[in-house]
């Protein structure tokens, strides 16, 4: 029991801060999710499709409610499995609309967002109105609520996040090639369609496991804001991914920690606000690309504010 003996003083200190073992594990899980979301989100930002996760995110609600109705269970793995199915279905509908109708891409995205979220709300509303036992807690997937997470749930989220990061690292070169020059990638024989589909799948996974922390409405922010912040600090893709991961991790942990100070506050908005604060700071003070640096440069050179 080295861990226990080693950790005892720390445990006592934690108890003093009002932190329990469970809170710590949840924080760890959420940190891993924030990190993974930042890493995968960086790739979609570089691929110039930053909002592709939004359609998947809003579609998850149907799966959460559907999984509960189909199995009668409300444990996290079951609900998230349902969410994953409906997220992929939402993306598939989006691809089909783009391929087979005259509807413009942005309108098709908005349609998937609005209609799938409406279906999810209708299912949730039906569950609540019928008073199906255990159905009341499903609303926490709208705006995120980590208070209900168990240590096992958090561990599951952490494992999936780390797996995602490992996969991204393994195929990073190919994903970056497709992101920076899809035409060249296709011409040199890389399966661009397959890699894009893979990236979509990764973003769907991140959106799904981001649900407990950020909720269906705001989880998009978890894959958009940290990468935007990270982009300000560096021109190298590798550093950007690492930084976005760190920013996402920080935002997720800060949001969850603040929400635990006060009951009844959804975690999603707090995580988003934490990420937004990091982003604002990055946009203003980052060297070279930041707003201040550009202003200074244009003062010195007289007008040219390109980095």
């Amino acid at each position, binding site marked *: 029991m080295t861990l226990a003996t080693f950790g005892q003083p720390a445990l006592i200190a934690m108890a003093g801060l009002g932190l329990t073992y469970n809170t710590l594990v949840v924080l760890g899980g959420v940190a891993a999710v924030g990190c993974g979301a930042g890493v995968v989100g960086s790739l979609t930002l570089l691929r110039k499709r930053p909002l592709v996760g939004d359609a998947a995110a809003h579609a998850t609600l149907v799966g959460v409610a559907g999984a509960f109705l189909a199995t009668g269970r409300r444990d996290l793995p079951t609900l998230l499995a349902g969410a994953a199915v409906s997220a992929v279905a939402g993306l598939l509908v989006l691809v089909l609309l783009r391929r087979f109708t*005259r509807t413009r891409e*942005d309108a098709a*995205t*908005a*349609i998937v967002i609005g209609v799938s979220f409406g279906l999810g709300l209708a299912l949730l509303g039906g569950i609540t109105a019928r008073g199906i036992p255990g159905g009341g807690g499903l609303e926490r997937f709208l*705006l995120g609520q980590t208070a209900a997470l168990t240590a096992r749930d958090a561990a599951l989220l952490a494992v999936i996040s780390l797996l995602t990061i490992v996969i991204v690292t393994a195929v990073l070169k190919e994903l970056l090639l497709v992101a920076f020059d899809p035409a060249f990638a296709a011409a040199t024989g890389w399966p661009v369609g397959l890699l894009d589909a893979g990236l979509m799948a990764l973003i769907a996974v991140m959106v799904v496991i981001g649900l407990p922390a950020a909720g269906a*409405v705001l989880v998009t*922010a978890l894959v958009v804001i940290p990468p935007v912040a990270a982009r300000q600090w560096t021109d190298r893709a590798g550093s950007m991914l690492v930084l976005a991961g760190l920013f996402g991790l920080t935002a997720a942990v800060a949001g969850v920690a603040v929400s635990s100070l006060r009951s009844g506050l959804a975690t999603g908005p*707090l995580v988003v606000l934490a990420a937004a604060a990091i982003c604002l700071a990055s*946009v203003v003070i980052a060297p070279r690309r930041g707003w201040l640096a550009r202003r200074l440069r244009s003062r010195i050179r007289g007008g040219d504010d390109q980095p």
Partner: protein
Amino acid sequence: MSSDALALHGWSMLTAATVSASCALVGTLLVVRRMSLLGDAIAHAVLPGIVVGVLAGGRLGGPLVLAGAVVAALMTVGLTRGLRAAVGLAEDAGSGVVFTTLFAAGVVTVSLFASRIDLDPECVLFGILELAAFDLVSVGGVEVPRALLTATAVLVIVAGGLAATWQLQISTAFDQEAAAAAGIPVAVVTTGLLSLTAVATVAGFEAVGAVLVVAMLVVPAATAELLVHRMHQVALVAVAVAVAAAGLGWLAAWRWNTSAAGMIAVVLGGFYATAVVLAPADGLLARLVAKLALDWRVAREDWLARIWRAGEQAGAAGASVVRPRPRTGLERAAAVWLRLTGRVERSAGRVRLSKDGAREAELVVRSHRLWETWLGRHADLPADHLHPPAEWVEHHLGAAMRERIEAELTAGEADPHGREIPPEAGRPDGPPPVV
């Protein structure tokens, strides 16, 4: 249903329909200007504006809240453009940062002040359509839901604003540069559209919640675009779709005892899906039927033309020609069909074209050879590359085109392969020989 319940449902449906109509009107322009996702962003971002308006003492649907929402909407666009100007961030990523942040700020504020204002995170997401019929005010002796009054005022503002600037909006939507060159103040027109979007969104927000507003903005217009093409028709059909969906969605929610906002979005999705499949010109079904009809005509014409050519060859070479066989399933079906309708006759293992069949076949062969001749003269293609394009164009060359090409030729000229071009009126010596 008792008359009380009827009144309750009636008022709520009417409110939902009025709100939907306003959203559908601005949505028409948003969709055609590829600003659907900006509509989504605005629908989220008005929340802090509404909250600040309420905290400042305004009431939902009141002028203070409307003003707050318009400011928040313009702020979303301003901040997004500011991010692009300041650090070169693309607009979609920028709006993703801005609207999620504003919405999050709104939700947190609502949660913190939940006890002081009559808004809570639930109603931010679900809307309060169900409660509309309980907050009544008296208008000329009739008890009317306050939300309906707001919705009507919003509809008047939106419809009036769009009607007054419709031509400017259309010109700006289709070609901003041309509009600017013609002296239209494009920035003012766009800001006007965004403000009207914010106003319509506030009404929609109250009725169905933040996220579903995007369905009310975009789906009616996207549906209408599949059905009609002129802009004012799109706007009118969008309004009709929106009103019908509001009514049906409300009824469905009442029937299955669930969220009215959610069901309205689901019904809208159903309308859109129906239009995707059944739209008269752009629908999947119509396109499938048109494609099959074309394939079927091509198969019939190809089969007739191949028998005709084989007959021509047999006439030139004596009777030893390989009889053509259908190459595809569709051509086999076409062969059976043509025999049943008497254009191909078969007796004692030999095949011949009837008079009608021969006439149709001649026109196809004539189109084919005329096109080869024309291409040979003008397109600078080697002779062995002329056949493939002609094989396709032969099915699409009308009598007028054939006449124009023939006018270029000298009388009795053969095609580039030295074969006879059948005359438009048919060959004087009747159908080609038996194969």
